[in-house]
């Protein structure tokens, strides 16, 4: 237990976890109906897609680069899978194809990011992927998907939405992958100092590729669930998630410099974003004003994180 406390305190997730706790307490005071079990479940359900997307993105951020294409990837895969299940291909096969598309996109992004700055490369592929989605849908929206598929997005196991269970599984897998495996260790190692990683005989290319594949597969999975939840597919449905995903990871203390942060913080980041929106809805703040508040929360959280980290670094130097 002592060790656990120490680990939490030293981890970069520390401040985002504190932020989350403070936010929960404040929310309970501001909006009494925040505390209800129903609302808690709603929050987790609303957060689940963001959790899947941003946990995946964490892998890429840890290597010190960026993937701006997760929103478009989710959109494209969602559309493809919707069309497949609509043309009565079985759900597992369609899902497998969706995941494979994720792998391919990850490989392309990862290869490009080995040559160009990831930020630029994936800003470009984001448009290309979004364009593909529009082309496949021919500008149409598909409705009325088979219940065997939509069940994944709207179904419940007991009181718990299946979406939440999926999110939990993805988060746990990514946490283990990044902290308890040689691949994860090498992602951190590479992000912390790419040159030293190369001199330490780390296959750097492969590490970056793996991180991008992890990220895009998560995006692909989130895309399918998005379609299942909406019971519809639209090429633009992933768009709003693109930057939110980045925000969740960054609020969680995963720095874009690479090598610092992790899934734990990202979970906190995703929940913080979701709760802020939830509370604004509960208290009736108009949607038009919400962007302003979300933006402020992002800036403040990142500010706290950066300042405290700088102070820590100067402490013993």
């Amino acid at each position, binding site marked *: 237990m002592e060790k656990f406390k120490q680990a939490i305190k*030293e981890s970069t997730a520390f401040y985002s976890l504190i932020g989350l706790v403070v936010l929960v307490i404040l929310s309970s005071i501001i909006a009494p109906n925040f505390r209800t079990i129903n609302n808690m479940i709603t929050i987790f359900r609303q957060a689940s897609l963001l959790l899947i997307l941003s946990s995946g993105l964490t892998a890429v951020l840890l290597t010190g680069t960026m993937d701006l294409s997760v929103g478009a990837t989710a959109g494209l895969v969602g559309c493809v899978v919707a069309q497949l299940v609509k043309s009565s291909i079985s759900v597992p096969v369609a899902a497998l194809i969706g995941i494979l598309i994720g792998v391919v996109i990850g490989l392309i992004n990862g290869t490009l990011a080995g040559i160009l700055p990831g930020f630029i490369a994936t800003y470009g592929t984001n448009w290309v992927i979004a364009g593909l989605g529009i082309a496949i849908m021919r500008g149409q929206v598909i409705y009325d998907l088979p219940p065997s598929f939509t069940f994944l997005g709207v179904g419940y196991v007991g009181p718990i939405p299946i979406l939440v269970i999926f999110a939990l599984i993805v988060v746990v897998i990514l946490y283990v992958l990044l*902290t*308890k*495996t*040689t*691949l*994860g*260790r*090498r992602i*951190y*190692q590479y992000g*912390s*100092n790419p*040159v*030293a*990683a*190369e*001199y*330490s*005989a*780390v*296959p750097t290319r492969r590490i970056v590729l793996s991180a991008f594949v992890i990220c895009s597969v998560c995006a692909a999975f989130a895309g399918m669930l998005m379609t299942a939840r909406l019971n519809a597919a639209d090429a633009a449905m992933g768009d709003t998630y693109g930057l939110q995903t980045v925000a969740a990871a960054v609020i969680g203390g995963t720095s874009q410099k690479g*090598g*610092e942060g992790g899934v734990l913080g990202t979970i906190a980041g995703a929940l913080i974003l979701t709760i802020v929106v939830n509370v604004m809805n509960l208290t009736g703040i108009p949607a038009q004003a919400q962007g302003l508040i979300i933006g402020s929360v992002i800036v403040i959280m990142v500010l706290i994180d950066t300042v405290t980290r700088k102070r820590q*670094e100067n402490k*013993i*130097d």
Partner: protein
Amino acid sequence: MGKTILEAKHITKLFPGMKALDDVDFDLQEGEVHILVGENGAGKSTLSKVLLGAYKPEGGEIFLDGQPLKLTGTKDAIEKGIVAVYQENSLVPYLNSAQNIFLNREPKTKLGLLDLKKMNDDARELLKILNCEYIDVTKVVSSLSVAEQQMVEIAKALSFSPRIIVFDEPTSTLSEREVESLFKQIRKLKAEGLGIIYVSHRMQEFPLIGDRITVLRDGKKIGCVGINECTDAELVKMMVGRDVSQVYVRNKTDFSEEALKVENFCDQDGRVKNVSFNVRKGEIVGLAGLVGAGRTETAEMIYGIRPIASGKMTVFGKEQLPKTPTSAVKMGIGLISEDRKRQGLALNESIAQNTVAVSLLKVFPNFFVNNSKINQIAEEFKEKLRIMMTSVGKKTRFLSGGNQQKVVLAKWLSQDPEILIFDEPTRGIDVGAKMEIYNLMDRMASEGKAIIMISSELPEIIGMSDRIYIMKEGEITGELKREDPDFNQEKIGELMMLGGAE
């Protein structure tokens, strides 16, 4: 010599897990240059920071002119006339000299605007005291040479009308000529009655500039001697705590089979030309040469980082060329690179994680890692290499240079390659850590490892190598064996500068 300006008694400074200063006494007289010397981590910088008000000591007292002095911070120290000139420039590169000197206390006109004329005039005045009126005070600092920047830095220190100036390793970035002119200025300040504290470990400079030397070791004061009262060897012994004659340890071993043979190595940009050499098990082979002679490049080709344009390489009888460091490591080759901060360590990762940076897949072949196992390995090497640290979970950036280098060694020892290349393994680390690294190399060779050592320090490469290849401009110009009569600095120097006889 004049009266005592500054006196520090029983200074104790604690850092988490260690005593940085332990009951240290120090005093400084008017018109004196008092040298503070010691290995890295001995406490010399800590002591000067205490005197400069940057650290608050946990115990002890400081007296200025016999009056007790309680410093609240560096600003307070400056007001009391104690200023510093740091080793790394603290100037703002994009401002000019005058702006830097009067940063944050720029003279103003009656209207409250900057009085540029007065600022520039005053800056010129200060530089004139230093005989540096040739420096244009309106030129941005980044366009000045390192030595000129240092003069600006001193001018800035002087602008506070100080009584005591602390110089922290001021010559580490200067050329010989620049050092001489710096010393001239220091002597001048000294003649004006200022007290100078001079932190350095360049022993050859001490007689040129110092009056007294205080030696620190492990945070304790070992002694204070007059400049002519002791020899270099005695001084080193005080610093290190043991005799210097034991610095290089090389127990002769029998060389067995050939471990590595390189034939006609050429790289793509002509920095390595037709290099051929070999190294046997149990042997330490030195690569000597000037910086830029192609030694590091050769090492990087063997290690698979630098592309090989042509040539053959044989590892334990098997002809193979490394394409990447990964393949080199598979062949049993390791490289301890010369730039440990950039190439050797992930400074923001923990000591434990750096220790297994290379051996990760060897220790955990089944994909999953066990962090307590990693910590256990790191603890092992902490003991074995005597790495000074509070915990293996600490970030590597917090270690001193010598201890960081030991972590790099640990990283390779945990992988345990059969052929290990040491590229400038002792650069920038103190004598004690150097000796431990020599000991380790000797032990590894006697265990049957093949070792290649690249070094620009001739005494070191002669002290440790069984054979030396000398390189010049990408080519090997000679080979000397330990038993050769001309296995000495003169011959090696000649081959380095002039090349082979043919």
